[in-house]
């Protein structure tokens, strides 16, 4: 900033200079001011930049650390939880870094901890409560961390943790313990895995040989079958004329399909081969594949010092696995459905199925083999096809018991069955038709688990039993289906309320059609939709339905007026003088049957009544709404008044700006909430109203009392003048 030297000398020195000189003069004062600044905010945590500055200042010298320690200790004893929280955060940072700070703090830890954790009942943490909770949590966590890291070096830390845990019963988060437990579990797993790998190292060759032999067996079996099938295919191909499949593409497709469907049905000749194949396949898939997968997972998870064996073994196992997969795929490609052998069902049941199916297959299979077109169908398919047959067979066998029984009853009995009432079970049914005397013991008639002596004389005679067992039943009302109201709703759809007679929103429940229009009956009630009035002449305006027995509707009719000339379909209403209505009544009476049919008149009358009711309802609604608005307005007024002027302080605050505010204004900063403001209890409008009410009540009581005493004194003064 280029400026004349004279003018710059006249100006006050720039801000930075004294600060820097102060910093150089004493690190203590700078760290003190830094800590002061860091802890005098209402922000939830210490500003990271400030924290860094504090750390670098503390790093400079032991004196700075001592100073910081002293200041932090004094801050920790401030009666403000937020200041303590911020101070504790800084202390935690310094504790984790400086040995000197650690030793200083350890010496006074017994005084420091109650200020941070607040475990002493006589000295709980100060307000505000939110910061106090945070502080306690942070302190306990930090203490646990300190204990874990430096516990061996500071007896005080061990003591503190033990005391808090055992005596003060402070809950530690136990994060460290959880981590350690997990590590221990990990280590144990590793141990087990290592042992397994050791075992594997010994058995690897044997396992591999076993699997290899199984695979070979399957391969051999497949080869045998293929040879047979090739023979067969050749035979089939010979039979089929090659030239039929002319194009190369067609031939390749055909070859593919043949390859895919390369299958020899199980016959008696190759049954042994199939059995062996199935056996080894089962072994391979259910045992070897699973073991191989297990070993792979073990090898992947294990953590060995020497990974060479692991890698080689893993490689081998993966190869073996791929091989097994290949064999399995080949089997399934060949359509050799060997999977069925180890389906989830019980093996025995499976065998039974096989037995049944096999027995049935025997007959049709030669025919099938003969038709080569069916080559593609797998044994599964055939089996599926056969199963229902077997099923029906068994059904037929069982049939007489289950399905056909009703038909076989004699008709008389069926008739009786139909008439017989259905009774709920009761003890009557237990003794139905028996007229023997009943034995009893001390417990009454229950002789089921009576193991003791039986007294044959202790009986209840049959007559008495019958008397006791008289059947009684409670009348149960048949459930009545309550029909829904079904009146059309404004938002669309029909009203689904189920009321017995009258829907509170839509009046009496009448039968309605699909759109909610009432289906008129001879003396039907009025409803929401009337015919347009525009159809009618202007000459008569209101009509009364003579049949309507409803009293209030007749009242309404009296209140109803329809001015002449309302021909546009809109009814115009006024507040109703009953005279005119009467006149109108007369007119309408005279007009009944004048030139319109009776139905129309009735309809009109209904419409009129309806309209009046609707208007009445609307009026009521409007009135209610207005009332509500008034009440709300009143409440708001009261609230505002209460909020403004319930306390003199707030009233004063509201009226004239307090000196604090003005000072703040002068400083030119819109300062946020101060630390002191955090301590203030927030007065809600609810509190104010409660206070006001209380005041009012107290005032009333005082007035009453005063008047009473006045009255009394008056009576005493003038005993004969009342």
């Amino acid at each position, binding site marked *: 900033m280029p400026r004349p030297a004279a003018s710059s000398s006249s100006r006050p020195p720039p801000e930075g200079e004294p600060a820097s000189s102060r910093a150089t003069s004493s690190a203590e004062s700078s760290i003190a001011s830094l800590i002061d600044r860091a802890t005098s905010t209402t922000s939830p945590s210490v500003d990271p930049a400030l924290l860094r500055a504090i750390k670098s200042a503390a790093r400079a010298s032991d004196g700075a650390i001592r100073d910081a320690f002293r200041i932090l200790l004094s801050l920790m004893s401030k009666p403000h939880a937020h200041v303590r929280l911020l101070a504790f955060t800084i202390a935690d940072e310094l504790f984790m870094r400086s040995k000197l700070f*650690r030793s200083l703090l350890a010496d006074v830890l017994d005084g420091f901890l109650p200020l941070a954790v607040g475990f002493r009942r006589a000295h709980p943490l100060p307000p505000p409560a939110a910061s106090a909770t945070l502080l306690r949590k942070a302190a306990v966590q930090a203490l646990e961390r300190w204990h874990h890291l430096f516990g061996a070096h500071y007896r005080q830390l061990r003591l503190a943790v033990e005391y808090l845990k055992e005596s003060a019963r402070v809950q530690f988060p136990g994060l460290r313990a959880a981590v350690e437990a997990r590590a221990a579990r990990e280590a144990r797993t590793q141990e087990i895995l290592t042992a397994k790998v050791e075992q594997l190292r010994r058995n690897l060759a044997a396992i591999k040989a076993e699997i290899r032999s199984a695979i070979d067996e399957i391969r051999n079996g497949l080869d045998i079958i293929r040879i047979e099938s090739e023979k067969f295919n050749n035979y089939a191909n010979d039979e089929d004329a090659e030239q039929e499949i002319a194009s190369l593409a067609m031939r390749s497709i055909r070859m593919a399909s043949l390859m895919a469907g390369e299958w020899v049905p199980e016959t008696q000749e190759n049954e042994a081969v199939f059995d062996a194949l199935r056996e080894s396949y089962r072994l391979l898939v259910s045992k070897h594949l699973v073991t191989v997968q297990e070993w792979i997972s073990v090898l992947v998870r294990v953590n060995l010092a020497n990974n060479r064996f692991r890698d080689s073994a893993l490689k081998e196992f993966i190869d073996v696995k791929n091989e097994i997969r290949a064999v399995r795929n080949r089997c399934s490609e060949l359509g050799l459905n060997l999977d069925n052998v180890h389906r989830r069902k019980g093996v025995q049941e499976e065998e039974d199925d096989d037995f049944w199916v096999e027995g049935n297959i025997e007959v049709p299979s030669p025919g099938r083999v003969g038709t080569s077109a069916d080559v593609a169908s797998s044994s599964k398919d055939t089996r599926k096809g056969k199963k229902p047959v077997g099923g029906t067979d068994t059904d037929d066998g069982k049939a007489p018991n289950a399905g056909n029984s009703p038909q076989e009853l004699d008709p008389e009995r069926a008739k009786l069955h139909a008439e017989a009432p259905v009774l709920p079970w009761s003890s009557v049914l237990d003794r139905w038709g028996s007229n023997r005397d009943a034995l009893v013991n001390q417990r009454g008639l229950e002789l089921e688990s009576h193991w003791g002596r039986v007294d044959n004389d202790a009986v209840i005679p049959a007559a008495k039993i019958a008397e006791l067992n008289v059947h009684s039943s409670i009348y149960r009302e048949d459930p009545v289906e309550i029909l829904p109201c079904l009146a059309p709703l404004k938002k669309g759809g029909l009203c689904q309320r189920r009321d017995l007679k009258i829907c509170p929103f839509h009046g009496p429940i009448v039968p309605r059609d699909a759109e909610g229009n009432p289906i008129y009956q001879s003396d039907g009630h009025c409803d929401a939709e009337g015919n347009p009035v525009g159809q009618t002449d202007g000459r008569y305006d209101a009509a009364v339905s003579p049949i309507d027995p409803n009293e209030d509707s007749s009242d309404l009719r009296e209140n109803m007026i329809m001015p002449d000339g309302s021909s546009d379909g809109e009814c115009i209403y006024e507040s109703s003088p009953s005279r005119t209505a009467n006149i109108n009544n007369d007119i309408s009476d005279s007009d009944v049957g004048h030139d319109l049919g009776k139905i129309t008149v009735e309809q009109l009358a209904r419409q009129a009544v309806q309209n009046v009711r609707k208007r009445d309802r609307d009026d009521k609604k409007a009135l209610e709404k207005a009332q509500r608005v008034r009440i709300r307005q009143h409440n708001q007024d009261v609230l505002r008044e209460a909020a403004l002027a319930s306390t003199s302080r707030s009233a004063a605050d509201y009226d004239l700006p307090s000196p604090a505010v003005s000072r703040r204004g002068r400083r030119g900063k819109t300062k946020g909430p101060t630390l002191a403001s955090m301590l203030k209890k927030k007065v809600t409008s609810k509190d104010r109203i409660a206070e006001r009410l209380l005041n009012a009540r107290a005032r009333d009581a005082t007035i009453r009392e005063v008047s009473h005493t006045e009255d009394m004194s008056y009576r005493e003064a003038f005993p004969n003048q009342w």
Partner: protein
Amino acid sequence: MWCEAVRRRERGELGARRFETAARARRTASLALSNRKEFATPHNGAVNSLQVDLIERRYLLSGASDGSAAIFDVQNAIEYEAGFIAKHRSILLVDKQHENGHKFAVSMAVWYPVDTGLFVTASFDQYVKVWDTNSTQVVMDFKMPGKVYSAAMSPIATTHMLIATGSADVQDPLNSLQPSSSSKIYSAQQRTGKSKKQSHKLHKSQIPGHGHIQQRLHPGLSSSQNRATAHYGAVTGLRTTTDGMYLLSSGSDSRLRLWDIDSGCNTLVNFEAMRLQTSKPLQLAVTEDPSLVFIPCMASIKAYNLWSGMTFQTFRGHYEPVNCCYYSAQEQELYTGSNDRQILVWSPSTPAFTEMEDDGKRQMDFVVDEDNWSD
């Protein structure tokens, strides 16, 4: 500086006795909470009394409010934690589970002065029991008429084997001797200065226990014209110096006074302000050369210079009021027992020694205690 003293001793410039005294004084002056040695407390209540046996100076006997008494080996630790923290676990514990254990709090546990084979416990369940240390059995018990607040045996007596007890019953005569096979009960009601005085003369070194808190003690009442009150309030603790010349008394008026036993006069040493626990008997400790007195002041222990009354040091570490402290002259260690169940060891902290010890035993399991300024 200690090397210098050793060198002077080598050269013969320093007498053996003086060298020893200087070393002891130096070590005593550097007492601090020990990080190398700790007692794993088996007690579930406040520790009421502590005593190291007088023969081997090796076994620490503690009595606690949960009715238990325990013995620790002060010299040999049973196990080490993190390689260098000697954890002394109790080698013997008698608690309520024991068939003959005390029902209520053990108020005092003292060793039989001439042998570690016996120890005596006094309890609020009105019993004083004599235990065989090796078999952990009660060999004798005495039913007292009230709560027993204290018990003591004379460490120098040769003509009798009496246990002095302080119990709640005030009607018991002063010298009621209850004959028994090996021990006799000497029920010393510490009501008057006279009884006090007698016992001083009797023992000349050890005062039998603490004043019942509802009674007043006038140490110099009868022997001199000084009829002034010793303490305004209950006397809560008594301790003679090891040479038997002086008596220290603490009272619920939060005062510590030093009495000249021979004359029965108050020495008028003004001990600096302290705040003492008023509801429980206190066990004070004095160094062997009498230069320092250790007194439990609520949750801390204060060391006062015996002759000037100046506060020498404050030991902070307990979280609840401290009841008793015992200074082991052999090891120059201070043991303190508190309401927070802990028995803490305050040992001479000589950084040079501990660092040397550390080098051998240090394990890398824990973070090294060094500065760690990452940023």
